[in-house]
C-alpha cells in the first residue's frame, strides 16, 4: 500500500466537496420544492397544520421505500407493495372491526401476513427463478383481488380509538423537543466519533467544514420541523416509526453480514456466489422483509384513513420505487441508501400534497409523478454511464 501523502493533502477539500455536492443535491431539491409550493400556495404549504399532515402522509411511502431499497439493491423490484399494503390493511380492518380482535394482535397478524406473502413471492423469485418483475406484477393483481374478495368490496370502518391512535397520536411537546435535541446530540456525537476513528485509521477525511456544515443543516432542519410541528399538535407518532425503522435498516445494511451480502448480490451476483454467499436464501429473506414492512405500512394506512378500503395503497409501488431512485438507489443493484430513500419519499409526497393544495386535477398529478420517475431513473443511468466510461 503506497499512499501519496502530499497529493492527498491538496486533494482533500476537492473530494469532500464532490461527495457533499451529491448528498446536498437531495436536500436542495427538497428545499426548492418546499419554496416553490410555499410561493404557489401563498405560504399555506409550510403551515404547521399542513406540514404535520405531510409528515403523516409520508410515513406509508417511507416505510415501503425502506424495504424497497433492499429489494432494489439486490437488483430486483417489487411491484406488489401497494396492493400488499392495501391487503394487510384490509385484513387488519376485518380482524379489528368484524372480529373484534384487539389492536396489538391485529398489528402482529398484519405484519405476519405481509411477511408470509412477501416470502411467498421471494420463493418464486429466489428458488423458482421467475423474474421479480413478473412475480410481483402477478402479486399486485392477486393481492388486490384477495382484498376485494374478502371485503366483498365494502369499506370497513370505523376503527376504535386505540387503532386510530397508531397514526393519529402525537408526542407531547416536551418529549418531542427532548427527542429532537437528543437526536441532534447523537448526530454530532457520531460524526465526531467517526471523524476521530477515521483519523486514527488514517482514512481520508472530508473537511470539517463540510462534515459539520452538513449536520448543522440537519440539526437546524430537525429543530425547525419540531418547532413547526409543535405549534400544531406535536410530532406525529408515525414519523417516529419511520425514524426507528430507518435506523434499524441502516444498522442492518452496514453492520450485519446479511446486509453486506445483499449489496454484494446486487453488485455482482456471480462473484458473491463464489464468495460463499447464499444468493437464494438472502433474496428470499429480502422479499420477506419487504412484505413485513408492507404490513406495517398497511396498518398505518388503515389507521390514518380510519377505514380499510379496496383501493387503499393503489399505485404506492410507484411512489416507493421513485423515492428510492431519487434517493440514489441504483436500479442495476449494489447501491442504495436508506436515508436517501426516506428523503425521496418526502419529496414524492410533497409533490402530491402541494399539487392537491393547489387544486391541480388528479390527472396532472399522475402525469407529473410518472415523469419524475422516468427522469430520476434517467439521471441514475446517465451518471452511471459517465463513471463506467472512466472505468472501461
Amino acid at each position: 500500500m503506497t499512499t501519496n501523502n502530499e497529493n492527498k493533502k491538496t486533494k482533500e477539500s476537492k473530494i469532500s466537496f464532490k461527495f457533499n455536492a451529491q448528498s446536498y443535491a437531495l436536500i436542495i431539491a427538497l428545499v426548492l420544492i418546499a419554496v416553490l409550493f410555499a410561493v404557489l400556495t401563498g405560504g399555506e404549504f409550510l403551515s404547521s397544520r399542513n406540514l404535520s399532515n405531510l409528515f403523516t402522509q409520508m410515513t406509508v411511502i417511507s416505510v415501503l421505500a425502506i424495504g424497497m431499497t433492499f429489494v432494489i439493491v439486490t437488483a430486483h423490484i417489487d411491484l406488489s407493495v401497494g396492493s400488499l399494503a392495501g391487503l394487510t390493511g384490509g385484513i387488519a380492518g376485518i380482524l379489528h372491526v368484524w372480529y373484534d380482535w384487539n389492536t396489538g394482535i391485529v398489528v402482529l397478524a398484519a405484519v405476519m401476513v405481509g411477511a408470509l406473502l412477501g416470502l411467498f413471492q421471494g420463493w418464486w423469485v429466489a428458488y423458482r427463478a421467475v423474474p421479480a418483475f413478473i412475480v410481483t406484477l402477478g402479486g399486485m393483481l392477486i393481492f388486490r383481488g384477495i382484498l376485494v374478495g374478502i371485503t366483498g368490496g365494502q369499506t370497513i370502518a370505523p376503527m376504535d380509538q386505540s387503532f386510530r391512535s397508531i397514526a393519529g397520536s402525537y408526542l407531547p411537546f416536551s418529549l418531542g423537543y427532548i427527542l429532537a435535541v437528543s437526536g441532534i446530540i447523537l448526530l454530532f456525537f457520531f460524526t465526531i466519533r467517526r471523524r476521530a476513528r477515521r483519523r486514527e485509521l488514517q482514512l481520508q477525511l472530508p473537511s470539517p467544514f463540510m462534515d459539520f456544515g452538513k449536520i448543522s443543516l440537519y440539526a437546524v432542519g430537525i429543530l425547525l420541523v419540531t418547532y413547526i410541528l409543535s405549534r400544531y399538535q406535536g410530532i406525529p407518532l408515525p414519523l417516529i416509526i419511520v425514524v426507528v425503522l430507518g435506523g434499524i435498516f441502516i444498522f442492518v445494511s452496514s453492520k450485519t453480514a446479511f446486509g453486506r451480502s445483499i449489496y454484494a448480490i446486487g453488485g455482482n451476483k456471480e462473484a458473491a456466489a463464489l464468495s460463499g454467499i447464499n444468493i437464494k436464501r438472502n433474496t428470499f429473506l429480502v422479499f420477506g422483509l419487504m412484505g413485513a414492512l408492507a404490513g406495517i405500512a398497511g396498518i398505518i394506512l388503515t389507521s390514518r384513513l380510519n377505514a380499510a378500503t379496496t383501493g387503499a395503497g393503489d399505485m404506492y409501488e410507484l411512489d416507493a420505487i421513485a423515492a428510492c431512485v431519487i434517493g440514489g438507489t441504483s436500479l442495476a443493484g449494489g447501491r442504495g441508501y436508506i436515508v436517501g430513500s426516506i428523503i425521496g419519499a418526502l419529496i414524492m409526497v410533497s409533490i402530491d400534497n402541494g399539487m392537491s393544495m393547489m387544486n391541480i386535477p388528479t390527472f396532472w398529478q399522475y402525469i407529473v409523478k410518472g415523469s419524475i420517475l422516468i427522469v430520476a431513473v434517467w439521471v441514475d443511468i446517465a451518471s452511471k454511464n459517465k463513471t463506467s466510461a472512466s472505468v472501461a
Partner: protein
Amino acid sequence: MDRKFALKMMNITKEFPGVKALENVNLKVKKGEVHALCGENGAGKSTLMKILSGVYPFGSYIGEIFINDREVQFLDIKASQEAGVAIIYQELALVPEMTVAENIFLGSDLMRSGIISWEKLYAESQKWLDMTGLDIDPQMKLGDLTVGKQQLVEITKALTKNADILILDEPTSALTESEAEVLFSILARLKERNVTCIYISHKLDEVLKIADSVTVLRDGQTVSTDPISNLTENDIVSKMVGRELTEFYPFEERPFGNEIFRVNNYSFYENETQEELVANVSFNLRKGEILGVSGLMGAGRTELFISLFGGYNGKKTGEVYLENELISINKPADSIKHGIAYVSEDRKRYGLVPEMNIIKNTTLASLDKVKKNRLLDADMELEKAEEYAKKMNLKSHSLEAFMSQLSGGNQQKVVLSKWLLTNPKVLILDEPTRGIDVGAKFEIYKVIVELAKEGVGIVLISSELPEVLGMSDRVMVMSEGRITGELPRTKATQEEIMKLATIGSDI
C-alpha cells in the same frame, strides 16, 4: 520538426482525486511501427491510452497531443475515432447477446442507416474476418465464442474503422498461443499498410518478438524510449521496476506433509446438455505441495476446479477427500467452510464487486472473521484489508478506493487478498498472474511459496508454461476433460507438457 512521428504526446499530466496517475509523460511513436508500452501495474499505461482515445477528454489532463504533427484536442471517443485512433480495451467491450457481425459493425453506418441489410452486414463481416484470418461464422452469437475469439473479434472491429493508430491494451492476456499467433500475423499485415500500433503487454517475450521500440513508464513517469534492438528482456524489467531483477521464480525445495486433498474418479456433467465436461479424473495433493495444472484453453481445467469448489450446478460423480475424510460439496460456502479457496481466472465476472471498495471486497468471503458480537466490525475489516494490501504490495491511494479506480493488476491483488483471508488449507489459483507485471508476479509467487511452506496445498492452473514449470512441484496435464499425464518437476519440460496437452485434441 521531425515529420516521421505519427503520434506525439508531450508533457502529459493527469490527476485523479488523490492520485497523480501521470506526470509529464512523453510518448513519441513513429509512423508504421509497433510501439510497446511497458510498466508495472498502476504505472499509468491504460490511463495514458484513455487520454489518447478521448475517454478522458481534453481539459481533464494537462499536456499536448500531436497526430501527424497536428495538435489534437479530443472531447470524446468519437472525436478520436474520427482522427483515426482506435483502442481495444483491457476489458472486453462487446455485446455477448448479439451476433459477431452485429458486434463488428455496431455503431457504424452499416448498422445505423434506418434499415439494416443483413446480407450486406454478413458479407462485409466475412470479408473482414477473412482478412484477419479468423475462422468464425459472422452469424454466431458472440457470447458462444471463447474469450480469446471474442478478443479477436474486437480487434477486427477496430480494423473496420480504418484506424491509423491502433491501441491494444493487454490484448493477449485471454488468448491461447495459437490465437496470439493469429493476432501477431494481423499486426504484421497492418504494418504493411503503414498502420501504427501501440501495444501494452506484461508478456515481455511477446514485446521482444513484435515491437519495434519500447517506452517504459514507472509510477506515472516516462523512464525511457529505446529501439528494441538495444534492449534485452532484463533491461526492460529493470527499467520497469527500477532495480535489477535477476530471479523470476522464487521456488524452493520443501518437504511435503500428509495428503490433504484427494479426488477419485470424478466426473462432471453440464447441467442442461448433460455433456461430460470432466471425465473420470483422479488426483491428489499433499500439504505444502504446489500442483501445476497445464493444458490448452478449453481442456476442462477451470470446469474441473469450479465444479469441485461447488460453483456450478450439474451432475457430479466420484469422491472428494479432505485430510482423508470424505466430504460433500454442494455450494461454495461448503468449500469455504472446509478451507478450500478458488481464485477465478475472470476477476471481473467472478471476482470483484465493482460498487464496493477494497476493504469490502477483501472481506467478502470471510465475513465471519471480521465480526465482533455477531456484528461486522469496521476496524477489524480495515485491519485485515490493510494487512493483505501490504502483503500483496497493493498500489492504491486509499483502501476505500473502488475497483474501477484500480489498475487491472491491482484488482487481481484484491481478489487474491480476499481468498488468502479465508485462510485456506487448499488454495486453487486459476491463472493468478494474468495481467500482472513482472515485479508483482514475483511478489505473488513469493506468497505462494510462503503459503506452501506453511503447509497449504496449492493448485496452480496456468496457461503460461514457464510459470507452471518454474513454480510447480508436479505438473498435471489435462486435455478434453481428462488428465492425460503427470510429470514430476524434474521431468517436466515444455515439449513433454505440450505432447500431453494435445492428446486427443485435433491440434
